[in-house]
């Protein structure tokens, strides 16, 4: 039953992570917090100059959240309600698009916060549905992994549109029977040798994984960001995925499917989350995961503040609560992801032995630099022109590839 609950949570996570998820051009933050509105030139954030509070007042007694399923669990919501008097009501969203729809018109004066994934972040910021927060009122922020303090997907022009929450990488999962030593390249996913034994997520954002691979293996294409693809770059990526299709046993929709595919030996290599690896290893399957030389994509979620939030004080109290080491660890262990707060590591180990290392919560900064966090592909990409392929075309292309 526990596995089922987690599976459900992961389905939501899939939506969160895979479906849209975290943007941010890279762990490195080459474009990070420089220049207002950078990264999406031609766009301005409507709420950029909205003043932020300098202190947190008395709670309003109520807090309305839009969250991924599994992000408002009683284990950490009940103590929050007792400590602050803010009664939490959470509305679970099934996808980033649903989150964007629910947050339209600044949350409509109904919702206070949303646990948006990276791809939704920029849409929310540029449509004016979320407003800047005073990061100094969230003391745990200074304990975050540096790359999540000012990530380009939630921090623009030095203004923080929320606080980072949790994240995870998309790893290469392999059977140790087929691969005595870990593969060093994503090329195994495109290798005819493994025809019928490959599985990848059924998600349009998977195109970015192929683009990341091409950016390293075909430098001539000039791909610098797997989420900002010009039409020729996009076509080359889609072609690669069409060639990959005959090798695919199944495009998985649920983490549990990939687990059973590897357990039965139906597939020997695939794209996965650390959760699958850990579940399989715990069940005695001979599998491992790795981040190959080309790096990997990943998701990162942010608690963002609605422009018309009716309970801002409770919202700030929630940001403080959700970033505390204990809640960060509880969330990470419950959901199978990595906390933004470095101090959560020992508590994760208390909750579940070895969890900290299993989810790379204590990895060196260099590990995170290899991750390209999801962000919504926009027509207005970083080159100052509007010639990139937007997300809707990614969805159409994905249907053409998998259909």
């Amino acid at each position, binding site marked *: 039953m526990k596995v089922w609950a987690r599976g459900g949570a992961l389905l939501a996570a899939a939506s969160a992570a895979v479906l849209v998820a975290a943007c941010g051009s890279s762990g490195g933050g080459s474009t990070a917090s420089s220049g207002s509105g950078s990264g999406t030139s031609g766009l301005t954030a409507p709420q950029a100059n909205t003043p932020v509070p300098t202190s947190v007042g008395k709670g309003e007694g109520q807090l309305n959240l839009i969250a991924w399923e599994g992000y408002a669990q009683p284990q950490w919501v009940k103590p929050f309600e007792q400590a602050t008097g803010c009664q939490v009501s959470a509305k679970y969203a*099934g996808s980033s698009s*649903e989150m964007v729809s629910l947050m339209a018109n600044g949350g409509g004066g109904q919702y206070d916060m949303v646990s948006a994934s990276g791809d939704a972040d920029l849409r929310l910021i540029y449509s004016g549905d979320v407003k800047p927060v005073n990061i100094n009122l969230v003391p745990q922020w200074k304990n975050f992994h540096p790359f999540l303090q000012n990530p380009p997907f939630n921090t623009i022009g030095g203004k923080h549109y929320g606080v980072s929450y949790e994240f995870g990488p998309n790893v290469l999962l392999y059977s140790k029977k087929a691969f005595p030593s870990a593969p060093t390249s994503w090329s195994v996913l495109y290798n005819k040798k493994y025809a019928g034994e490959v599985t990848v997520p059924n998600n349009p954002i998977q195109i970015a994984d192929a683009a990341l691979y091409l950016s390293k293996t075909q430098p001539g294409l000039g791909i610098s960001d797997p989420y900002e693809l010009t039409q020729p770059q996009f076509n080359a990526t889609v072609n690669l995925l069409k060639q990959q299709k005959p090798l695919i046993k199944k495009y998985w929709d649920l983490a549990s499917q990939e687990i059973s595919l590897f357990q039965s030996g139906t597939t020997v290599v695939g794209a996965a989350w650390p959760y699958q690896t850990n579940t399989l290893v715990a069940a005695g399957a001979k599998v491992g995961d790795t981040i190959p030389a080309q790096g990997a994509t990943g998701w990162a979620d942010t608690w963002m503040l609605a422009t018309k939030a009716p309970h801002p004080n409770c919202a700030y109290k929630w940001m403080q609560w959700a970033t505390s080491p204990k809640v960060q660890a509880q969330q990470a262990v419950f959901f199978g992801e990595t906390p933004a707060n470095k101090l959560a590591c020992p508590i994760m180990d208390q909750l579940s032995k070895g969890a900290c290392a299993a989810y790379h919560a204590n990895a060196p900064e260099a590990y995170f630099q290899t991750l390209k966090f999801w962000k919504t592909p926009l027509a207005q990409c970083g080159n100052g022109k509007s010639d990139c392929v937007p997300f*809707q075309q990614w969805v159409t292309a994905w249907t053409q590839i998998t259909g």
Partner: protein
Amino acid sequence: MTATAVREDRTASGGARVSAALWRRAWLRATLTLSPPLAWFLVIYLASLLVMLVTAFWSVNPFTNSLVHSWTLANFQQIFTPTYLTIIARTVIMAAVVTVTDAVLALPFAYFMARVATPRGRQALFIAVLLPLWASYLARVYAWIVILQKGGTLSWTLSKLGLGTVNIGYTNVAMWIVFSYIWLPFMIVPIYGALERIPDSLLEASGDLGARNWRTLRSVVLPLALPGVVAGSIFTFSLTLGDFITPILVGGANSSFIGNVIYSNIGTAGNLPFAAALAVVPIVIMIFYLSGARAAGAFEAM
């Protein structure tokens, strides 16, 4: 004294007067009785269908994901591209193949139930047919994954019998088997209904006129069973046509159904108008199918 008593009685009981008025006006009675279900049908069912149809002519702003309320045929034009035509064809062919499979399996079974089995045996068979419907759809599909996957029950059994191994998990063959299994009761029950209604006298007359068993079956039983088959096929065809969970769970890399594309356009892409346009496709297919079924007299057998 008596007259006053009667008048008092009338004024005292308003309910009786209402009831009398309703008794006198049958149309009013019918209207009041039918209007709640009728309103429910119109408002909840037809109106939502209408809203969906209207949505199919709109589009979404790709950036904010909000609906753009300007009329366009682009969604329908997009359906007529190779990608979506392939998916529609796959869905319809699978629905047709499953329907034929179920009809072939259900006919002898229903015939045995209706005309051969003892009353007690019939009861047992009925329970056997309907019992699976008490278990969750998901549980039964997952059971088939365990049976069909690599190294699963089927493959294991075959290898023990020295017949080699099969690996048909996550293919369209697996989908065909699972669909045929899941919808089989919906085919058996209407065919049973049709066969049970055949009067014995017809079969006796056929025999008296010199027809052998096979001839009786072909010329008497099958034509009379046909409306039941068509009625059952409405269930198996439409249920397969609209399914999207079995393709997700047991399908392979070439298994997207219309329902899967609708689902991903609502969930992942947030493109409600295209999803609505695509949802019109099964409706149109079913309209054609139902008119054909009506011509075959299926509605009398239901």
